[in-house]
């Protein structure tokens, strides 16, 4: 299992996050691996999280390469820096995207990024 799918499975299992008690919205992750597109839809309803593999429309779409998604799931990515350098593409509500970013883990002593100048979201 990839770190990415393990991350979404953990979210499914959690079901609720009190930090999102005042948040409603939907975010879809479009993860591109070569010619393959993997789509995860996250619905947030006052802290209740519902995760599905779905191509349904969402208020906010986050596009990343599989490589960057894996690094995010391992806690190695600073989301705002990655948005600024064009590795994570957000369409829709950037504020919600940044809040969602808090669901991802973070290793306290992140080493230098594995591939500092690569990882196009395609």
């Amino acid at each position, binding site marked *: 299992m990839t770190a990415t799918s393990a991350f979404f499975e953990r979210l499914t299992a959690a079901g609720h996050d009190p930090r999102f008690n005042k948040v409603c919205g939907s975010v879809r992750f479009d993860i591109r691996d070569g010619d393959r597109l993997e789509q995860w839809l996250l619905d947030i309803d006052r802290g209740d999280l519902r995760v599905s593999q779905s191509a349904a429309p969402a208020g906010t779409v986050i596009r990343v390469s599989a490589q960057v998604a894996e690094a995010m799931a391992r806690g190695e990515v600073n989301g705002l*820096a990655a948005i600024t350098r064009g590795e994570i593409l957000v369409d829709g509500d950037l*504020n919600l995207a940044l809040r969602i970013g808090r669901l991802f883990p973070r290793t*306290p002593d992140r080493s230098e990024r594995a591939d500092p*100048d690569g990882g196009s979201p395609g």
Partner: protein
Amino acid sequence: MRDIPGTVSCIDGNTFIVSDASGDVESSPATPVGLFAADTRFLSRWVLTVNGQRLTALSVDDSQYYEVTFFVVPGGAVDYVAEDVSAIRRRRIGPDLTESLTIFNYGQRDVDLDVRLEVAADFADIFEIKFDLHDKAGSPYTHVDANELRLGYRRGTYRREVSVSASKPATFDPHGLRFSARLRPGEQWSTRLHVVMRALRPDGLDFRSALRAQRPDESTLPASVEAWVADAPKLDTESTALQQVYHRSLVDLAALRFAPLSLGGATVPAAGLPWFMTLFGRDSLLTCLQTLPVTPSLTPPTLRILASLQGARNDNVLEEDPGRILHELRYGESAAFEEQPHSPYYGTVDASPLFVVLLDEYERWSGDAALVMELEQEARAALAWIDQYADLTSTGYIWYERRNHATGLDNQCWKDSWDSISYADGRLPGFPRATCETQGYAYDAKIRGARLARTFWGDPDYAERLEREAAALFNRFNTDFWLEDRGYYALALDGDGTPVDSLASNIGHLLWSGIVPPERASRVVEHLMGPALFSGWGVRTLAEGQSRYNPLGYHNGTVWPFDNSFIAWGLRRYGFASEAGRIAEGILCAATYFQGRLPEAFGGFDRHTTRYPVRYPTAGSPQAWSSGASLLLLRTMLGINPHEDHLAVDPALPSAFARIALLDIPGRWGKVDAFARHRPEQP
């Protein structure tokens, strides 16, 4: 980092251009001149020549911050009288830069014009300029076609681009553009130059495009500035100096408003030109505290953006912890590639308590209970951060010691230069360090947090707990920091608990926070107003007689208007109205030497010796919390304070001002007026 005298700025939030007096930009690597957006320099060269000659300014009109007009003639100042040709460059900044160029022929003969504009873009990150770094990891590119010049920079998926086009036919080349025209006597020629800055994603969209779409039409800008000034209370006073500084402060606060990417178009104050044109936690919170009586609309977006970027995890590069409020947010290349930790950087220990202080103070003024409810979770997390993450030695204080050893800040208090915290004999204390004013902010945050918990959050147990903690902090602080033989509070505690014995302005903030027992206040005030700290203009950051004192030391002897405004607020809180008035008079009088625009800091030289405030070489200007300082000093002179549902007024004017009226002060009371008249002291 160098000061550049004679520069002209044109500002719109975090987009700005700094040029010389003729409108030209000729950057050398370490000087912050050029066209900037998103912490990146998009134009490093912008030089106009007419028939091979550079232009000289006869006059410059920069009375509107977003628009500058240069009246120029070819050649040096000595021979212009013989010139038949003159020109006007009118520049306006918004999301794009536009410059209208008009050339006149007032001579008797036909004139052939060769108009050349040299253009270059180095895409320097603001930190490359600050630290004079040259080697860029990515590659530049240039694209020339019949209608525009495009200069770009690419590093992996990071891409920034600037394009220059004109309304008249021009010849474009990789280094600029050229126009030719023939003017008969009395004729004029003009063109409009258009400079577009883009922060491009790999799919070709500007990642700021959603934000730009929310921006009101550029043509509404003058009206919006007028409305901003018209919405503020009216100042009625006989002092033209005070009127000037009040108006200048309002307009500069308008200029520094910028819309962060994730705030849906709402604007917050950027900290200041040229180095700090972005969101700083501390600066924006203190600016909002200063400006609540005048421009309260700055506060809700500031609290919201800081809440939305509040720390959630542990990260030793960003120095992020759950609940911690950010220090600095940048969008440039060094932040994007984490060569600098500003995406965002959390290395400050005062923004978290000040977040709670501002939320409470804002509610007292506005009655906006909804915002207190909306931000309950974030305010609780900020309060929890104080005890769970900041108490590095388990002694009940906020301490700091950087975890990012490469690029983090040594000192994470407002005096954040490396040598700002020292013993009286000049030694630097070890780490971690606990500065005194931060403990005051923590005390105040707990007291105010308790009020919010009891009044709005329906949690009296939490309120009692916060009050118990505040009372314990009060006692502990007054034992551990108080230097009985000196009669003041230690600047800080060393890592081993030893009091750092320097006399510094920080003790003034303790009065503002209310952590000083009333019986000790007069001894503290004697020091603040004594000759070692008080220069005649204001309270120095570090007292004369301390080993590291230098009247031009950034945090070691200069006078900071913002610092003084909070000290004056503290003095009034403890009943020292005439001392607060002396500070207000000194700082506001100093402002007249800077055309009403208080700089970040000025020299700590004695007022009677120099007779004018000495400019600090690299001081930023305009600076949000310096603009805010004059508004807070106005508040302290009027003695205005929200009291339940009305505004209490308790004026105390220094003799420099005979009469001040602030009309239509907004708040939970609707709009009310406050009046003050100087009362000669009774014999």
